[in-house]
Protein backbone atom coordinates (compact mmCIF):
# COMPACT_ATOMS: atom_id res chain seq x y z
CA UNK A 1 0.00 0.00 0.00
CA UNK A 2 2.77 2.41 1.03
CA UNK A 3 4.82 1.36 -1.97
CA UNK A 4 1.90 2.03 -4.32
CA UNK A 5 1.44 5.47 -2.76
CA UNK A 6 5.13 6.23 -3.18
CA UNK A 7 5.01 5.16 -6.82
CA UNK A 8 1.99 7.40 -7.39
CA UNK A 9 3.76 10.36 -5.81
CA UNK A 10 6.85 9.72 -7.89
CA UNK A 11 4.74 9.55 -11.03
CA UNK A 12 3.02 12.85 -10.21
CA UNK A 13 6.34 14.49 -9.48
CA UNK A 14 7.88 13.39 -12.78
CA UNK A 15 4.76 14.61 -14.62
CA UNK A 16 5.09 18.04 -12.99
CA UNK A 17 8.77 18.16 -13.96
CA UNK A 18 7.85 17.31 -17.56
CA UNK A 19 5.13 19.98 -17.61
CA UNK A 20 7.53 22.65 -16.36
CA UNK A 21 10.06 21.51 -18.95
CA UNK A 22 7.51 21.61 -21.79
CA UNK A 23 6.14 24.98 -20.67
CA UNK A 24 9.58 26.41 -21.38
CA UNK A 25 10.90 24.17 -24.16
CA UNK A 26 12.39 26.37 -26.88
CA UNK A 27 11.84 23.72 -29.56
CA UNK A 28 8.22 23.04 -28.59
CA UNK A 29 6.41 26.38 -28.57
CA UNK A 30 3.15 24.53 -29.30
CA UNK A 31 3.33 22.92 -25.85
CA UNK A 32 3.78 26.11 -23.85
CA UNK A 33 0.12 27.03 -23.45
CA UNK A 34 -0.95 23.42 -22.78
CA UNK A 35 1.71 22.89 -20.17
CA UNK A 36 0.85 26.10 -18.37
CA UNK A 37 -2.81 25.04 -18.28
CA UNK A 38 -1.90 21.62 -16.89
CA UNK A 39 0.23 23.19 -14.16
CA UNK A 40 -2.53 25.63 -13.27
CA UNK A 41 -5.12 22.81 -13.05
CA UNK A 42 -2.75 20.77 -10.94
CA UNK A 43 -1.77 23.62 -8.56
CA UNK A 44 -0.39 22.90 -5.09
CA UNK A 45 2.99 23.20 -3.38
CA UNK A 46 4.69 20.52 -5.52
CA UNK A 47 4.21 22.70 -8.63
CA UNK A 48 5.79 25.73 -6.96
CA UNK A 49 8.65 23.59 -5.76
CA UNK A 50 9.36 22.20 -9.23
CA UNK A 51 9.26 25.68 -10.78
CA UNK A 52 11.76 27.03 -8.27
CA UNK A 53 13.99 24.04 -8.91
CA UNK A 54 13.84 24.69 -12.66
CA UNK A 55 14.70 28.38 -12.21
CA UNK A 56 17.58 27.63 -9.87
CA UNK A 57 19.05 25.14 -12.32
CA UNK A 58 18.47 27.02 -15.61
CA UNK A 59 18.28 30.70 -14.69
CA UNK A 60 15.53 33.25 -15.30
CA UNK A 61 16.10 33.53 -19.02
CA UNK A 62 15.23 29.87 -19.53
CA UNK A 63 11.59 30.80 -18.88
CA UNK A 64 9.25 31.20 -21.83
CA UNK A 65 6.93 34.17 -22.14
CA UNK A 66 3.85 31.93 -21.90
CA UNK A 67 5.15 30.36 -18.72
CA UNK A 68 6.02 33.73 -17.21
CA UNK A 69 2.50 34.92 -17.94
CA UNK A 70 1.11 31.68 -16.47
CA UNK A 71 2.89 32.30 -13.18
CA UNK A 72 0.22 34.93 -12.55
CA UNK A 73 -2.37 32.15 -12.25
CA UNK A 74 -0.50 30.20 -9.56
CA UNK A 75 -1.44 31.37 -6.12
CA UNK A 76 1.54 30.42 -3.98
CA UNK A 77 3.73 32.75 -1.93
CA UNK A 78 6.88 31.22 -3.40
CA UNK A 79 5.68 31.95 -6.94
CA UNK A 80 4.83 35.52 -5.96
CA UNK A 81 8.34 35.76 -4.53
CA UNK A 82 9.79 34.45 -7.79
CA UNK A 83 7.86 37.05 -9.79
CA UNK A 84 9.21 39.79 -7.52
CA UNK A 85 12.71 38.53 -8.32
CA UNK A 86 11.92 38.50 -12.04
CA UNK A 87 10.77 42.13 -12.15
CA UNK A 88 13.95 43.19 -10.35
CA UNK A 89 16.18 41.28 -12.77
CA UNK A 90 17.00 43.94 -15.39
CA UNK A 91 18.40 41.29 -17.72
CA UNK A 92 15.30 39.10 -17.64
CA UNK A 93 13.80 38.89 -21.14
CA UNK A 94 10.16 39.07 -20.07
CA UNK A 95 10.08 41.74 -17.35
CA UNK A 96 6.89 43.40 -18.69
CA UNK A 97 5.17 40.00 -18.64
CA UNK A 98 6.38 39.35 -15.10
CA UNK A 99 4.90 42.71 -14.09
CA UNK A 100 1.58 41.70 -15.64
CA UNK A 101 1.65 38.33 -13.86
CA UNK A 102 2.31 40.06 -10.56
CA UNK A 103 -0.53 42.44 -11.36
CA UNK A 104 -2.80 39.40 -11.88
CA UNK A 105 -1.83 38.19 -8.42
CA UNK A 106 -2.69 41.65 -7.00
CA UNK A 107 0.52 41.59 -5.01
CA UNK A 108 0.07 44.40 -2.49
CA UNK A 109 3.63 43.95 -1.18
CA UNK A 110 4.95 45.05 -4.60
CA UNK A 111 3.01 48.34 -4.60
CA UNK A 112 6.10 50.50 -4.25
CA UNK A 113 7.82 48.63 -7.06
CA UNK A 114 4.77 49.10 -9.28
CA UNK A 115 4.85 52.81 -8.47
CA UNK A 116 8.56 53.00 -9.29
CA UNK A 117 7.99 51.10 -12.54
CA UNK A 118 5.80 53.94 -13.86
CA UNK A 119 9.16 55.44 -14.83
CA UNK A 120 10.76 52.22 -16.12
CA UNK A 121 12.82 52.46 -19.32
CA UNK A 122 10.75 49.65 -20.92
CA UNK A 123 7.35 50.86 -22.02
CA UNK A 124 5.89 47.39 -21.44
CA UNK A 125 6.84 47.67 -17.76
CA UNK A 126 5.32 51.16 -17.48
CA UNK A 127 2.05 49.95 -19.02
CA UNK A 128 1.95 46.81 -16.85
CA UNK A 129 2.66 48.86 -13.72
CA UNK A 130 -0.38 51.02 -14.48
CA UNK A 131 -2.51 47.87 -14.74
CA UNK A 132 -1.08 46.57 -11.46
CA UNK A 133 -1.86 49.81 -9.62
CA UNK A 134 -5.39 49.73 -11.01
CA UNK A 135 -5.83 46.19 -9.66
CA UNK A 136 -4.59 47.39 -6.27
CA UNK A 137 -7.00 50.34 -6.47
CA UNK A 138 -4.05 52.60 -5.69
CA UNK A 139 -5.74 56.02 -5.99
CA UNK A 140 -2.66 57.74 -4.55
CA UNK A 141 -0.92 57.03 -7.86
CA UNK A 142 -3.50 58.95 -9.91
CA UNK A 143 -1.38 62.14 -10.31
CA UNK A 144 1.58 60.08 -11.58
CA UNK A 145 -0.65 58.01 -13.89
CA UNK A 146 -2.07 61.25 -15.30
CA UNK A 147 1.44 62.27 -16.31
CA UNK A 148 1.66 59.10 -18.39
CA UNK A 149 -1.11 60.44 -20.64
CA UNK A 150 1.82 62.29 -22.24
CA UNK A 151 4.13 59.24 -22.48
CA UNK A 152 6.19 58.68 -25.63
CA UNK A 153 4.43 55.39 -26.37
CA UNK A 154 0.76 55.03 -27.30
CA UNK A 155 0.25 51.82 -25.32
CA UNK A 156 1.29 53.52 -22.09
CA UNK A 157 -0.87 56.59 -22.73
CA UNK A 158 -3.86 54.38 -23.57
CA UNK A 159 -3.43 52.22 -20.47
CA UNK A 160 -3.18 55.35 -18.32
CA UNK A 161 -6.44 56.62 -19.88
CA UNK A 162 -8.22 53.29 -19.29
CA UNK A 163 -7.02 53.03 -15.69
CA UNK A 164 -8.03 56.60 -14.90
CA UNK A 165 -11.45 55.84 -16.36
CA UNK A 166 -11.71 52.77 -14.12
CA UNK A 167 -10.99 55.13 -11.21
CA UNK A 168 -13.92 57.31 -12.33
CA UNK A 169 -11.72 59.96 -13.97
CA UNK A 170 -12.48 60.79 -17.62
CA UNK A 171 -9.47 63.03 -18.14
CA UNK A 172 -7.71 60.43 -20.31
CA UNK A 173 -10.51 60.02 -22.84
CA UNK A 174 -9.24 62.85 -25.11
CA UNK A 175 -6.04 60.83 -25.63
CA UNK A 176 -8.09 57.90 -26.91
CA UNK A 177 -10.37 60.02 -29.10
CA UNK A 178 -7.28 61.65 -30.63
CA UNK A 179 -5.84 58.17 -31.29
CA UNK A 180 -8.84 57.31 -33.48
CA UNK A 181 -7.03 59.42 -36.12
CA UNK A 182 -3.62 57.77 -35.59
CA UNK A 183 -1.80 57.57 -38.90
CA UNK A 184 1.68 56.41 -37.96
CA UNK A 185 3.34 54.27 -40.56
CA UNK A 186 6.75 52.67 -40.13
CA UNK A 187 7.62 51.78 -43.71
CA UNK A 188 5.18 48.94 -44.50
CA UNK A 189 3.81 48.56 -40.96
CA UNK A 190 0.71 50.57 -40.10
CA UNK A 191 1.23 51.17 -36.38
CA UNK A 192 -1.54 53.74 -36.58
CA UNK A 193 -4.10 51.02 -37.20
CA UNK A 194 -3.09 49.19 -34.02
CA UNK A 195 -3.71 52.37 -32.01
CA UNK A 196 -6.94 53.16 -33.88
CA UNK A 197 -8.38 49.71 -33.20
CA UNK A 198 -7.34 49.73 -29.56
CA UNK A 199 -8.85 53.17 -28.89
CA UNK A 200 -12.04 52.35 -30.81
CA UNK A 201 -12.52 49.06 -28.93
CA UNK A 202 -12.45 50.89 -25.62
CA UNK A 203 -14.44 53.98 -26.61
CA UNK A 204 -17.27 52.06 -28.26
CA UNK A 205 -17.95 50.40 -24.89
CA UNK A 206 -17.78 53.70 -22.96
CA UNK A 207 -19.98 55.50 -25.49
CA UNK A 208 -22.22 52.45 -26.09
CA UNK A 209 -21.85 53.31 -29.77
CA UNK A 210 -19.35 52.10 -32.38
CA UNK A 211 -19.70 55.45 -34.16
CA UNK A 212 -20.80 53.63 -37.30
CA UNK A 213 -17.36 52.78 -38.70
CA UNK A 214 -14.47 50.33 -38.42
CA UNK A 215 -10.92 51.49 -37.62
CA UNK A 216 -9.41 49.49 -40.49
CA UNK A 217 -11.49 51.26 -43.14
CA UNK A 218 -10.03 53.92 -45.42
CA UNK A 219 -9.59 57.54 -44.28
CA UNK A 220 -12.63 58.56 -46.33
CA UNK A 221 -14.81 55.77 -44.96
CA UNK A 222 -13.80 56.57 -41.40
CA UNK A 223 -14.38 60.33 -41.64
CA UNK A 224 -18.12 60.47 -40.71
CA UNK A 225 -17.58 58.06 -37.79
CA UNK A 226 -14.66 60.12 -36.47
CA UNK A 227 -16.79 63.25 -36.57
CA UNK A 228 -19.44 61.36 -34.60
CA UNK A 229 -16.90 60.25 -31.98
CA UNK A 230 -15.57 63.79 -31.62
CA UNK A 231 -19.10 65.18 -31.28
CA UNK A 232 -19.74 62.57 -28.59
CA UNK A 233 -16.79 63.66 -26.41
CA UNK A 234 -17.43 67.35 -27.08
CA UNK A 235 -20.85 67.02 -25.43
CA UNK A 236 -19.28 66.45 -22.02
CA UNK A 237 -15.85 67.98 -22.68
CA UNK A 238 -16.07 70.85 -25.18
CA UNK A 239 -12.36 71.69 -24.77
CA UNK A 240 -11.20 68.07 -25.21
CA UNK A 241 -8.68 68.97 -27.92
CA UNK A 242 -6.81 71.26 -25.53
CA UNK A 243 -6.53 68.37 -23.10
CA UNK A 244 -4.56 66.15 -25.48
CA UNK A 245 -0.91 66.27 -24.32
CA UNK A 246 1.63 67.38 -26.91
CA UNK A 247 3.13 63.90 -27.38
CA UNK A 248 -0.30 62.33 -27.88
CA UNK A 249 -1.25 64.65 -30.76
CA UNK A 250 -1.57 63.14 -34.19
CA UNK A 251 0.70 64.84 -36.70
CA UNK A 252 0.25 65.13 -40.42
CA UNK A 253 1.77 62.14 -42.17
CA UNK A 254 3.44 62.20 -45.56
CA UNK A 255 7.14 62.79 -44.84
CA UNK A 256 9.33 60.73 -47.15
CA UNK A 257 12.26 58.82 -45.76
CA UNK A 258 15.62 57.89 -47.23
CA UNK A 259 16.72 55.37 -44.59
CA UNK A 260 15.31 53.62 -41.53
CA UNK A 261 16.77 51.79 -38.54
CA UNK A 262 14.54 49.59 -36.39
CA UNK A 263 15.82 47.81 -33.33
CA UNK A 264 13.37 45.59 -31.45
CA UNK A 265 14.64 43.96 -28.31
CA UNK A 266 12.59 41.87 -25.90
CA UNK A 267 15.49 42.15 -23.52
CA UNK A 268 16.35 45.82 -23.66
CA UNK A 269 13.60 47.75 -25.42
CA UNK A 270 13.09 49.24 -28.86
CA UNK A 271 14.88 52.00 -30.75
CA UNK A 272 13.87 53.59 -34.03
CA UNK A 273 15.27 56.35 -36.17
CA UNK A 274 15.02 57.47 -39.77
CA UNK A 275 16.65 59.93 -42.10
CA UNK A 276 14.07 61.89 -44.07
CA UNK A 277 14.48 63.16 -47.61
CA UNK A 278 15.53 66.58 -46.27
CA UNK A 279 18.42 65.10 -44.30
CA UNK A 280 16.78 65.29 -40.86
CA UNK A 281 17.52 62.66 -38.24
CA UNK A 282 14.10 61.61 -36.93
CA UNK A 283 13.89 59.66 -33.68
CA UNK A 284 11.02 57.36 -32.59
CA UNK A 285 8.15 55.82 -34.52
CA UNK A 286 5.01 57.15 -32.86
CA UNK A 287 6.17 60.30 -31.16
CA UNK A 288 8.84 61.82 -33.35
CA UNK A 289 11.76 64.09 -32.48
CA UNK A 290 13.67 65.63 -35.35
CA UNK A 291 17.08 67.29 -35.76
CA UNK A 292 18.68 68.62 -38.92
CA UNK A 293 22.01 67.13 -39.95
CA UNK A 294 24.63 69.46 -41.40
CA UNK A 295 25.93 68.72 -44.90
CA UNK A 296 29.11 67.33 -43.33
CA UNK A 297 27.22 65.10 -40.89
CA UNK A 298 25.00 63.81 -43.66
CA UNK A 299 28.05 63.03 -45.79
CA UNK A 300 29.66 61.08 -42.96
CA UNK A 301 26.36 59.26 -42.34
CA UNK A 302 26.01 58.27 -46.00
CA UNK A 303 29.64 57.13 -46.16
CA UNK A 304 29.08 54.82 -43.16
CA UNK A 305 25.81 53.64 -44.65
CA UNK A 306 27.54 52.81 -47.93
CA UNK A 307 29.65 50.30 -46.02
CA UNK A 308 26.49 48.74 -44.57
CA UNK A 309 25.10 48.49 -48.09
CA UNK A 310 27.96 46.19 -49.05
CA UNK A 311 26.53 43.50 -46.76
CA UNK A 312 24.44 40.85 -48.56
CA UNK A 313 20.84 41.64 -47.60
CA UNK A 314 19.34 38.42 -48.94
CA UNK A 315 20.17 36.46 -45.77
CA UNK A 316 19.62 37.07 -42.05
CA UNK A 317 22.56 37.36 -39.65
CA UNK A 318 22.95 36.06 -36.11
CA UNK A 319 20.39 34.24 -34.02
CA UNK A 320 16.65 34.29 -34.65
CA UNK A 321 14.28 35.54 -31.99
CA UNK A 322 12.59 38.65 -30.75
CA UNK A 323 15.78 40.73 -30.58
CA UNK A 324 16.88 42.12 -33.89
CA UNK A 325 17.93 45.23 -35.73
CA UNK A 326 16.80 45.98 -39.20
CA UNK A 327 18.24 48.47 -41.69
CA UNK A 328 15.86 49.85 -44.32
CA UNK A 329 18.03 50.67 -47.30
CA UNK A 330 16.49 52.57 -50.18
CA UNK A 331 17.00 50.94 -53.57
CA UNK A 332 15.25 52.96 -56.27
CA UNK A 333 11.63 53.38 -55.22
CA UNK A 334 11.60 50.66 -52.61
CA UNK A 335 13.38 49.62 -49.44
CA UNK A 336 15.45 46.51 -48.92
CA UNK A 337 15.95 45.23 -45.41
CA UNK A 338 19.08 43.95 -43.75
CA UNK A 339 18.08 41.76 -40.78
CA UNK A 340 20.53 41.19 -37.92
CA UNK A 341 19.76 39.01 -34.91
CA UNK A 342 21.66 38.56 -31.67
CA UNK A 343 25.46 38.37 -32.10
CA UNK A 344 25.12 38.73 -35.84
CA UNK A 345 26.19 42.25 -36.83
CA UNK A 346 28.66 42.07 -39.71
CA UNK A 347 31.88 44.03 -39.20
CA UNK A 348 30.92 46.40 -42.05
CA UNK A 349 28.05 47.75 -39.95
CA UNK A 350 30.09 48.55 -36.82
CA UNK A 351 31.44 51.96 -37.97
CA UNK A 352 27.85 52.93 -38.84
CA UNK A 353 26.64 52.02 -35.34
CA UNK A 354 29.45 54.08 -33.77
CA UNK A 355 28.70 57.07 -35.97
CA UNK A 356 24.99 56.91 -35.15
CA UNK A 357 25.87 56.91 -31.44
CA UNK A 358 27.93 60.10 -31.91
CA UNK A 359 25.15 61.80 -33.87
CA UNK A 360 22.52 60.86 -31.30
CA UNK A 361 24.57 62.35 -28.48
CA UNK A 362 25.24 65.52 -30.46
CA UNK A 363 21.64 66.04 -31.59
CA UNK A 364 19.54 64.64 -28.76
CA UNK A 365 21.88 64.38 -25.77
CA UNK A 366 23.12 61.60 -23.51
CA UNK A 367 19.67 60.10 -22.91
CA UNK A 368 19.25 59.20 -26.59
CA UNK A 369 22.77 57.78 -26.74
CA UNK A 370 22.15 55.67 -23.64
CA UNK A 371 18.92 54.27 -25.05
CA UNK A 372 20.70 53.37 -28.26
CA UNK A 373 23.69 51.84 -26.50
CA UNK A 374 21.81 49.73 -23.99
CA UNK A 375 20.79 47.18 -26.59
CA UNK A 376 23.59 47.73 -29.11
CA UNK A 377 26.06 45.23 -27.68
CA UNK A 378 23.58 42.37 -28.00
CA UNK A 379 24.09 42.37 -31.75
CA UNK A 380 27.86 42.61 -31.82
CA UNK A 381 29.52 39.47 -33.17
CA UNK A 382 31.29 37.46 -30.50
CA UNK A 383 34.95 37.22 -31.34
Amino acid at each position, binding site marked *: MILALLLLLQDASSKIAQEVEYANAKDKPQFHV*QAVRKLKDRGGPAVAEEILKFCAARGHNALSIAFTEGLGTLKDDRITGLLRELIRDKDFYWRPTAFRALADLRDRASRDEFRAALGDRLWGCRAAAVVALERLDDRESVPRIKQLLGDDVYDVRAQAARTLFAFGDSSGLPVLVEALRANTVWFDIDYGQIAREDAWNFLKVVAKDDFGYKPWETVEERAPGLAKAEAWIAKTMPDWRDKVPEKARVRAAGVEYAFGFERRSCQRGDFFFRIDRDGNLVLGYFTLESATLSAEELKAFNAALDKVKTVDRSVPYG*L*GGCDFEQYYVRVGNRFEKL*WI*GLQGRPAAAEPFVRLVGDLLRKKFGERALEEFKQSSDLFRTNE
Partner: protein
Amino acid sequence: MKRLAWFLLLVSGCSKPLPEAEPLAFQSLGAFEYTDKMKLPGDVTRWNGKLVKATGFINPTSQARNLTSFLLVKDRASCCFGKRPQINHYIEVKLRPGASADYSNDPVTIQGILKVDDRWDGDWQLGLYWMEAAEVLK
Protein backbone atom coordinates in the same frame (compact mmCIF):
# COMPACT_ATOMS: atom_id res chain seq x y z
CA MET B 1 10.09 0.97 -78.10
CA LYS B 2 9.58 0.32 -74.43
CA ARG B 3 11.90 3.23 -73.64
CA LEU B 4 9.92 5.50 -75.94
CA ALA B 5 6.70 4.50 -74.25
CA TRP B 6 8.19 5.35 -70.85
CA PHE B 7 9.44 8.67 -72.21
CA LEU B 8 6.01 9.56 -73.62
CA LEU B 9 4.37 8.59 -70.35
CA LEU B 10 6.79 10.76 -68.42
CA VAL B 11 6.32 13.74 -70.72
CA SER B 12 2.54 13.47 -70.59
CA GLY B 13 2.73 13.29 -66.77
CA CYS B 14 4.98 16.33 -66.57
CA SER B 15 2.87 18.43 -68.88
CA LYS B 16 -0.27 17.94 -66.79
CA PRO B 17 -1.05 21.38 -65.30
CA LEU B 18 -0.60 21.54 -61.55
CA PRO B 19 -3.82 22.14 -59.64
CA GLU B 20 -4.30 25.75 -58.59
CA ALA B 21 -3.65 26.32 -54.89
CA GLU B 22 -6.57 27.87 -53.02
CA PRO B 23 -5.69 30.94 -50.96
CA LEU B 24 -6.27 30.15 -47.30
CA ALA B 25 -6.80 32.98 -44.82
CA PHE B 26 -5.74 32.27 -41.25
CA GLN B 27 -9.07 33.69 -40.14
CA SER B 28 -10.73 30.61 -41.68
CA LEU B 29 -8.73 28.35 -39.39
CA GLY B 30 -8.70 30.34 -36.19
CA ALA B 31 -12.19 31.82 -35.96
CA PHE B 32 -13.43 29.43 -33.29
CA GLU B 33 -12.60 28.69 -29.69
CA TYR B 34 -10.83 25.37 -29.53
CA THR B 35 -11.51 22.97 -26.66
CA ASP B 36 -9.65 19.69 -26.21
CA LYS B 37 -10.56 16.96 -28.70
CA MET B 38 -13.61 18.84 -29.91
CA LYS B 39 -15.27 18.09 -33.22
CA LEU B 40 -13.75 20.69 -35.53
CA PRO B 41 -16.12 23.02 -37.40
CA GLY B 42 -16.97 22.17 -41.01
CA ASP B 43 -15.50 25.51 -42.12
CA VAL B 44 -12.15 24.15 -40.97
CA THR B 45 -12.32 20.47 -41.94
CA ARG B 46 -13.30 21.40 -45.50
CA TRP B 47 -9.67 22.46 -46.03
CA ASN B 48 -8.30 19.02 -45.21
CA GLY B 49 -6.27 17.56 -48.08
CA LYS B 50 -6.50 20.70 -50.23
CA LEU B 51 -3.61 22.36 -51.96
CA VAL B 52 -3.50 25.81 -50.38
CA LYS B 53 -1.32 28.85 -50.14
CA ALA B 54 -1.27 30.65 -46.83
CA THR B 55 0.42 33.87 -45.85
CA GLY B 56 1.71 34.37 -42.34
CA PHE B 57 4.83 34.89 -40.29
CA ILE B 58 7.60 32.47 -39.37
CA ASN B 59 7.71 31.89 -35.63
CA PRO B 60 11.34 32.58 -34.80
CA THR B 61 13.59 30.05 -33.17
CA SER B 62 17.25 30.60 -32.41
CA GLN B 63 18.10 29.33 -35.89
CA ALA B 64 17.77 32.07 -38.51
CA ARG B 65 19.08 30.33 -41.66
CA ASN B 66 18.33 27.08 -43.47
CA LEU B 67 15.07 26.28 -41.74
CA THR B 68 13.47 23.08 -42.97
CA SER B 69 10.44 23.24 -40.70
CA PHE B 70 8.76 26.00 -38.71
CA LEU B 71 5.47 27.23 -37.34
CA LEU B 72 3.64 29.64 -39.61
CA VAL B 73 1.62 31.99 -37.39
CA LYS B 74 -1.10 34.40 -38.33
CA ASP B 75 0.29 37.76 -37.29
CA ARG B 76 3.40 39.59 -36.23
CA ALA B 77 2.26 39.85 -32.63
CA SER B 78 1.96 36.08 -32.21
CA CYS B 79 5.24 35.49 -33.95
CA CYS B 80 7.48 37.81 -32.11
CA PHE B 81 6.21 40.25 -29.60
CA GLY B 82 4.60 38.55 -26.74
CA LYS B 83 1.28 37.06 -27.76
CA ARG B 84 1.11 33.28 -27.40
CA PRO B 85 0.02 31.48 -30.54
CA GLN B 86 -3.18 29.51 -29.91
CA ILE B 87 -3.39 25.95 -31.24
CA ASN B 88 -5.68 26.99 -34.12
CA HIS B 89 -3.58 30.03 -35.03
CA TYR B 90 -0.63 28.31 -36.64
CA ILE B 91 0.34 25.69 -39.20
CA GLU B 92 3.26 23.35 -38.64
CA VAL B 93 5.17 23.50 -41.91
CA LYS B 94 7.72 20.99 -43.19
CA LEU B 95 9.38 22.02 -46.43
CA ARG B 96 9.83 19.57 -49.25
CA PRO B 97 13.04 17.50 -49.05
CA GLY B 98 16.10 19.52 -49.95
CA ALA B 99 14.32 22.87 -49.56
CA SER B 100 15.06 25.39 -46.84
CA ALA B 101 14.11 28.93 -45.93
CA ASP B 102 15.71 31.76 -44.03
CA TYR B 103 13.93 33.55 -41.21
CA SER B 104 12.35 36.87 -42.07
CA ASN B 105 10.00 39.05 -40.09
CA ASP B 106 8.14 39.93 -43.25
CA PRO B 107 5.07 37.91 -44.23
CA VAL B 108 5.79 34.74 -46.20
CA THR B 109 3.50 32.72 -48.44
CA ILE B 110 3.70 28.95 -48.19
CA GLN B 111 2.10 26.46 -50.55
CA GLY B 112 1.35 22.82 -49.86
CA ILE B 113 -1.29 20.26 -48.99
CA LEU B 114 -3.00 21.17 -45.72
CA LYS B 115 -3.83 18.40 -43.29
CA VAL B 116 -6.42 19.19 -40.65
CA ASP B 117 -5.71 16.60 -38.00
CA ASP B 118 -5.99 16.97 -34.23
CA ARG B 119 -2.87 14.95 -33.35
CA TRP B 120 -2.04 13.94 -29.80
CA ASP B 121 0.81 12.13 -28.12
CA GLY B 122 -0.77 10.85 -24.91
CA ASP B 123 -1.83 13.93 -22.97
CA TRP B 124 0.02 16.32 -25.24
CA GLN B 125 -1.57 17.89 -28.24
CA LEU B 126 0.88 18.09 -31.11
CA GLY B 127 -1.08 20.40 -33.36
CA LEU B 128 -4.14 20.86 -35.56
CA TYR B 129 -2.85 22.08 -38.89
CA TRP B 130 0.00 20.53 -40.85
CA MET B 131 1.63 21.15 -44.18
CA GLU B 132 4.21 18.74 -45.52
CA ALA B 133 6.43 18.94 -48.61
CA ALA B 134 5.60 22.62 -48.67
CA GLU B 135 7.34 25.34 -50.63
CA VAL B 136 7.94 28.99 -49.91
CA LEU B 137 6.47 31.16 -52.65
CA LYS B 138 7.82 34.50 -51.39
